[in-house]
C-alpha cells in the first residue's frame, strides 16, 4: 500500500527507550519484539555486547560493530558514544523503521531521553521501563540503588511489571500500591504485543489503523491484528474508529490519558477545531501532538490499544 512512500530522510526516526534495572527483562523483551517484527526493520541499540542476551537464532551475522539480525534488523552497542552511534544508525541503509534503545541497567531513562532531544533526526516514541516484580520492593528500598530504581520507574511512560508469576496475590497487591502513578502492564517473560511498545499501525502506514493497511478501518475490534506472543494472547485488545469532523483535541487527549482509561497506546490522525490536521501519539499518560505528515492519507481516525478487561469508558466506545 502506502508503505515507505512517505519515508523521506527528513522524517524523524521513532525510537522507544527500554529501561530498567539489571535482570528486569529488557533483553527478554527485545528478543520477543524481534520475533514479532514481521518485516519491520528494527535497530536495537544496547549499551554493550558484554551481557548480550539476544537469542542466538536471531543473530545472522556481524559486520564491523553491527550485529545483523533476522528479518533485516540490526543490533549495535553504543558504550560511551550514544550520540555518535545514534547518528550512524539514522543514516544506515536500508533505513531502520524504528529504534529500540536499551539503556544500561544503572542508567536513568530520563537522562537518556534528554540526550535523544539532541538529535533532530530521532523522535522518542515513549519510554518503556521494566521492573522485576519479585525483586522490586527490595530494590526500591535498597540503601544504595533505591533512588536510582525509583527514578527509573518515574521516567516510564509505560511500566512493565514483569515476572508477576513470581509473586502471590497479596504480595502483588502490595507491590501495586507502592508504584508511582505510571501506566502499568503486568507481564510474564515480558510478553506483550509489539504494538504496545512501538505504537499502533506502525510501519504499515503513516497515519493510523491497526495493521490492515487499508483505508477501510472499521469500528470493529481487531485483536487478531496484534502480534502478541502466546503468553500474552487474549490479554490485549485494540480498537479503531473513524473520527468525524473537527475534534476537541484537549478533551480527547484527556480521555485517553486519564488514570482509568486503560489506554496503553493510542495513535490518531485528526483535525482540530481550527482545521489543522494533527498526528496524535499517546503512550501511557503522555501525549504528543504534531502536524500530520503530508503523506498521512485517509480519513481521520483513532486507534487504541489496552489491556483486555480494562477497556471501558470513552476512548473505547
Amino acid at each position: 500500500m502506502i508503505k515507505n512512500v512517505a519515508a523521506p530522510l527528513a522524517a524523524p526516526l521513532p525510537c522507544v527507550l527500554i529501561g530498567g534495572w539489571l535482570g528486569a527483562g529488557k533483553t527478554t523483551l527485545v528478543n520477543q519484539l524481534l520475533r514479532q517484527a514481521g518485516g519491520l526493520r528494527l535497530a536495537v541499540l544496547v549499551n554493550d555486547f558484554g551481557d548480550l542476551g539476544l537469542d542466538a537464532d536471531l543473530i545472522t551475522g556481524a559486520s564491523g560493530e553491527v550485529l545483523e539480525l533476522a528479518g533485516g534488523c540490526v543490533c549495535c552497542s553504543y558504550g560511551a558514544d550514544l550520540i555518535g552511534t545514534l547518528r550512524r544508525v539514522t543514516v544506515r541503509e536500508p533505513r531502520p523503521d524504528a529504534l529500540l534503545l536499551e539503556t544500561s541497567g544503572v542508567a536513568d531513562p530520563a537522562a537518556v531521553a534528554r540526550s535523544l532531544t539532541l538529535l533532530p533526526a530521532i523522535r522518542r516514541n515513549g519510554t518503556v521501563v521494566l521492573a522485576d516484580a519479585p525483586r522490586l520492593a527490595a530494590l526500591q528500598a535498597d540503601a544504595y540503588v533505591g533512588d536510582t530504581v525509583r527514578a527509573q520507574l518515574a521516567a516510564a511512560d509505560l511500566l512493565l511489571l514483569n515476572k508477576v508469576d513470581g509473586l502471590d496475590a497479596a504480595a502483588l497487591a502490595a507491590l501495586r500500591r507502592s508504584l508511582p502513578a505510571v501506566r502499568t502492564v503486568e507481564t510474564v517473560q515480558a510478553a506483550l504485543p509489539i504494538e504496545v511498545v512501538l505504537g499502533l499501525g506502525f510501519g504499515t502506514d503513516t497515519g493510523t489503523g491497526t495493521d490492515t493497511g487499508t483505508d477501510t478501518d472499521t469500528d470493529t475490534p481487531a485483536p487478531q491484528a496484534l502480534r502478541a506472543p502466546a503468553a500474552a494472547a487474549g490479554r490485549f485488545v485494540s480498537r479503531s474508529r473513524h473520527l468525524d469532523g473537527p475534534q476537541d483535541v484537549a478533551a480527547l487527549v484527556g480521555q485517553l490519558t486519564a488514570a482509568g482509561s486503560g489506554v496503553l497506546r493510542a495513535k490518531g490522525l485528526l483535525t482540530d477545531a481550527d482545521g489543522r490536521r494533527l498526528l496524535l501519539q499517546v503512550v501511557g499518560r503522555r501525549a504528543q501532538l504534531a502536524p500530520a505528515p503530508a503523506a498521512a492519507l485517509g480519513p481521520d481516525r483513532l486507534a487504541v490499544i489496552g489491556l483486555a478487561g480494562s477497556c471501558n469508558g470513552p476512548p473505547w466506545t
Partner: protein
Amino acid sequence: MSTPRDPITIFAARRIITMNPARPTATHVAVREGRILGVGPLAELAGWGPHTLDERFADRVLMPGLVEGHSHLMAGTLWRHAYCGCFDATDPDGRRVAGSPSIDAMLSTLSEAAATQPDGPVVGWGFDSIYFGSRRCTRADLDRVSTTRPVGVLHASGHILNVNTVALQAAGFLRAGIDHPAFPLGADGLPTGELKGPEAMLPALDPVGLNRSFLSGDESGIRAFGRLAVRAGVTTATDLAATLLDPELDTLLRLTREADYPVRLVPLLRMIGISPAQAVERAVALRARSTDQLRLGRIKVVADGSIQGFSARLRWPGYHNGAPNGLWYTAPEAMREGYERALAAGIQVHTHTNGDEATALALDCMDAALARQPRADHRFTLQHAQLADAAQFRRMRALGLSVNLFANHLYYWGDQHAAITVGPERAARMNAGRSALDAGVPLAIHSDAPITPLAPLFTAWCAVNRVSASGQVLGEAERITVPEALHAITLGAAATLHLDGEIGSIACGKRADFCVLDDDPVSAAPEALKDLRVWGTVQGGRVFQA
C-alpha cells in the same frame, strides 16, 4: 662448575634509602642481570666476585624506584597538544611550561600553538575554569584563537571539553532549541561550546582531532609517558583503565620489550562494556601474556563518578552545595559478581570509589563476595576512596583491602572541596592517610596523571602537608610522616599491585629499580619534599638520566 655470569655493577651513592628496616641505609648496591645482588658496604658486596664500580651516583641519593599506582598512559599522549593548565608543568622532554592562570592566558597559549602550524585543529588540555570564579570559557573566547579552524580545550578532569564555533558546528550542536544539562546555552540560545561529560564531548572529539584512539594511548604517547616517568623517578606505573584490545596490547608488548623503554607498565583491564565473566576470563588470558616489563591480568571497576563533577555517590548528607547525589557507573550486582569471579580466578581487582557511599558499597560487595569465595591475600584495592572515614578504613583492613588515596586532590581542588563540594569538615578528612595507616590498611597515594602531574614526590608532599593551592591546611590530623609517605610511593604502591616481593625496596633479589635524587628526602624538611631534584632512574639495572 659454575657457568659464566653477567657482569656485576656496584653503584656507589651518597646514601641509599632501602625501605628495608633490617638495613635502612647503605652506601653501595650491587646489580646483576637487572636485579639487586646486594646492598651494603662495598667490602661486603665485593664478596660476590669481580665487579665494576660505578661512581656516577657518588654524590646522589638512591631510593627504590617510585611506583605510581594510579596513572594513565594518556599522561604522555596529551603532551603533543598545548598545555593549558593553571599551574606550571614540565613536559616529557623536561621543558618547564608556564601555566595559564586566566582564560586570557589560556587563549594566548592556544594562539601560540595555532601559529606553529598553518592549518588543522588547535587543541589544548589541562584547562580548569574552577580557578577563575564564575567566568566560564565560551566559544566566543575560543573564536579569538581561530574562526576558521576547529579549536578545542580539554579540562583537567578529562570530563569537559570547550570548543569554538567551527568545532561546535562540525559536532552538529550549533543550533537553537537544545535543552540539555550537558550544553550550557548563551544569551543567543545557542550552546556556549562547553560540552560537559563524555556523551556531549565525544561527537566533538573528531573535529578537534582528539579522537578515541588517541585517548586510549598510542606509540608516541607511550614513549612520552616513559620520559615523564624517568623525570619523576618512577620505574613502575599503572595504566589504570585500559581496553587492552589486541592492537593496543601488541603496541604495549613491542614498546616495553625495547632495550631503552624505561618503565614497567601495569595496565588494568577495565570492566566497562564487558560482563564480569568476560572481564575475568580476559584478565586470566592477559595474565599469561605478562612480561617483566608489562604486567597484565588485573581488573579495574568503576563504582561512581567524581566529586568535583558531582557524579560521585556520597552518603548522607550529600553534597555541601545541595547538588543531587551522583551516579552508579557499575551496578552492585555486577561488582559483586566480578569480585567473586576474580577471587576464584586469583585475579586482582582495583575499584574506583570516589564518594563514601561508593566506598561503602564496594566494602559490602567485597564482604559478600569473600563470604562465598574466600581467598587469602587477594590484595584487592580501593582507588581514590577520597571520603573514606576511619570506620571504613577499619572495614578495609578486616576485608584485606588496600587503599590508594588521591592525595594530589588536597592541593589542586582542596579549596573547592571545602567551599563547594563537601564542605570544610569533610574536606579535612579527604584522602585520610593517617586514618588509613592507623587502621592498618596498606597505603598508596597517587596522581591519576594526567588529571594531575605524574610526580610521586609531589604526591608525598601533599599527603604530608595537606596544603591546598590557596595555602590552607586541610585536616592537619590526617597528615602522614615523610617516611610513611616515602613508603606509600614505593613499597606501599607496590603492595597494592601485589608486586612488593619484587619491587618497592632495595634488597637482595629484587629488581634493580632506583629513583636517583640530587637531594636527600630523609634530611629534607617536610615542606620541601616536592622540590627534591630527580636526576633520573635506574630500571632493571639500566640507567636513565632525566
